[in-house]
């Protein structure tokens, strides 16, 4: 009999352990009895079940992802887009979940189907520009909302549906690149032309200004010279006006002296007044009276 004791202890332990469940923070636990649903334990901590006859099934309580494969969609303006949606969801009704889809993989499959059809419908009403840009947020909110409604029957709460990637099909990509290239070339040309334009603007403006500066200076210079000439003329006129004949006499003498230099040859008549004393030293010839 003594030998039976450890066996009994082990047996008791086994029974004990199979009736105790550790419900983890990350799990829901469903208790079934021969496949028949009994209850759900969602509170973490210790849980109990009837040993042997009841089975505990753990279901993920955390937020999960469902990553549908990228698909090609047609937008309203007949453009093709590759969209890769991702859905975040969690199990909120383990029973519904367990009875309708059972496994996470199956749930993901169902969800992906819903998301794809919703997305296709939504995209068909949007142009590509809206899709890529501003409308994306609102559109995905719509898709999320409808997916959430549709998925509720699986005991699933959809947190959100997002577009992970939104790309153009390969061949469209090439044409986009060609367009971008053309656009950049246009810009580059524009910049170069603008540079030339600005440069010409500055240069010509500068030339104009420089010319104006010089012209103004010349104008001023002429004025100054004119002033000088005027003043000097006035002075001369006043001074020489006192005896114009004498001025003429003196000036003539000065001019002769200057004009007749070393290179000149002078031919003089002995009959001139200058030689009046040459033949007749005694007689004083008649002279003009000054």
């Amino acid at each position: 009999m003594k030998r039976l004791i450890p066996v009994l202890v082990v047996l008791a332990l086994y029974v004990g352990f199979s009736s105790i469940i550790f419900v983890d923070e990350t799990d829901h636990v469903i208790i079934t009895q021969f496949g028949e649903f009994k209850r759900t334990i969602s509170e973490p901590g210790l849980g109990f079940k009837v040993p042997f006859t009841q089975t505990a099934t753990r279901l993920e309580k955390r937020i999960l992802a469902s990553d549908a494969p990228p698909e090609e969609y047609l937008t309203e303006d007949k453009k093709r887009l590759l969209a890769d949606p991702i859905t975040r969801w969690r199990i909120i009704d383990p029973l519904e979940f367990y009875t309708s889809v059972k496994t996470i993989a199956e749930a993901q499959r169902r969800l992906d189907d819903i998301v794809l059809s919703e997305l296709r419908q939504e995209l068909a009403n949007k142009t590509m520009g809206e899709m890529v840009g501003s409308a994306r947020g609102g559109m995905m909110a719509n898709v999320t909302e409808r997916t959430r409604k549709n998925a509720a029957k699986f005991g699933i709460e959809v947190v959100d549906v997002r577009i992970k990637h939104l790309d153009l099909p390969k061949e469209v990509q090439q044409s986009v690149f060609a367009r971008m290239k053309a656009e950049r070339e246009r810009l580059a040309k524009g910049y170069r032309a603008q540079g030339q334009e600005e440069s010409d603007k500055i240069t010509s403006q500068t030339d104009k200004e420089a010319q104006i500066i010089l012209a103004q200076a010349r104008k001023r210079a002429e004025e100054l010279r004119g002033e000088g000439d005027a003043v000097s003329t006035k002075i001369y006129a006043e001074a020489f006006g006192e005896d114009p004949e004498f001025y003429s006499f003196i000036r003539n003498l000065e001019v002769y002296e200057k004009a007749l230099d070393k290179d000149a040859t002078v031919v003089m008549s002995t009959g001139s007044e200058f030689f009046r004393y040459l033949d007749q030293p005694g007689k004083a010839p008649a002279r003009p009276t000054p």
Partner: protein
Amino acid sequence: MSDFDGNNGPDLRAVVDEYRQSLGGRFKWLIPLVVVVVIIGLGLSGLYSVEPGEVGVVRTFGEETGQTQPGLHYAVPLVQHVDVVDLAKVRREEIGFRSGKEGGGQRVDAEALMLTGDENIIEAQMIVQYQVRDPSLFLFELKDPQKTLHVAAQVALRGVVGQMRITSSIEELPDTVAPLFEDDEEEDEANEEEAADDKKADGDKKADGDDDAKPKKDKMPAKKEDPLDKMDPSTDILTKGRERAQLLTKRKLQELMDLYESGLLITEVKLQVVDAPDEVKDAFHDVVRAREEREQLINKARGYREDRVPKARGEAQKIIRAAEAYRQERVLRARGEATRFGSILAEYNKARGITRERLHLETMERILQQVPKKVYIDDQVGKSALPLLNLNQTMTTVPGGAQ
């Protein structure tokens, strides 16, 4: 020996039996010893330490029952489970590339290429730095937080880039060009009209620029009291818009991660690379070059201006000074000559005949001294004979000589 073994014997019994057989009962004391050692070992296995910056999250029967701070702690084996989470560690996630061991990043095309709001394609590489803010959420609310973050970061970045654009128009020059040089008031009317036209044209240009900037602003759903509002949403993502994209992405990513109850805090979002894809990179770089060329041309023109205008001013000064000198000289000379004439005239008036004669003779004296070739012809000779002179030099007659 063991009838019970086959029934429901747990492994333990088999092990014990095996020991008994192998040891043959000689070392009976060994069994309790092993049991004790196992129990002590199990007990000790409950010890764990939490390093500074970390926190231990304790689950008892699966339920979170507490968090432990740095130090040595004990968790009851089999019953309690501890996850030590590093809160201080800054984690890092790479989007669009994977850095190799040598630091060189390998681009991941599927992640790096994305559409902008104006249907262009750009390449972006981003680093997200994050920390665990709430260890309970981090552990229990989201499956695979790191992968989730990786995807959410792409969602956020693409969402942001999808609302931004690449500059597709030539950037207006800031009003740099040649501030109109003070045109002199003495200019003609024609010039003034022209200047007025210029000013009008400038005004029109400015108005156009404003019109361009305004409508784009409305496209962003405005978040008020936001530093982002200060940044122009129409700026080019490839250049000035980068900072804005970072900020927006960070915000959006944090929103998403909060929605997923990840317990993560995004500390930094850094756009490592924002560039045109390889296929069109050359064209983009050419635009940059063209812009630089524009600047270069303008600078050169400005240099010309800097050089030309002062030189012209200098030249103008020279012209004016020369004219002033001329004026002064003329006046002074006139005064001098007037004075001289006045003086001579005064003396001349005192003895007119003599002075006149003297002045004449003195002049003649000087002239005849300095002129080397002199020909004197007697009037009588001149009348009878043909006066032939071999004039191999310029012949000049004294006007006063032939009366």
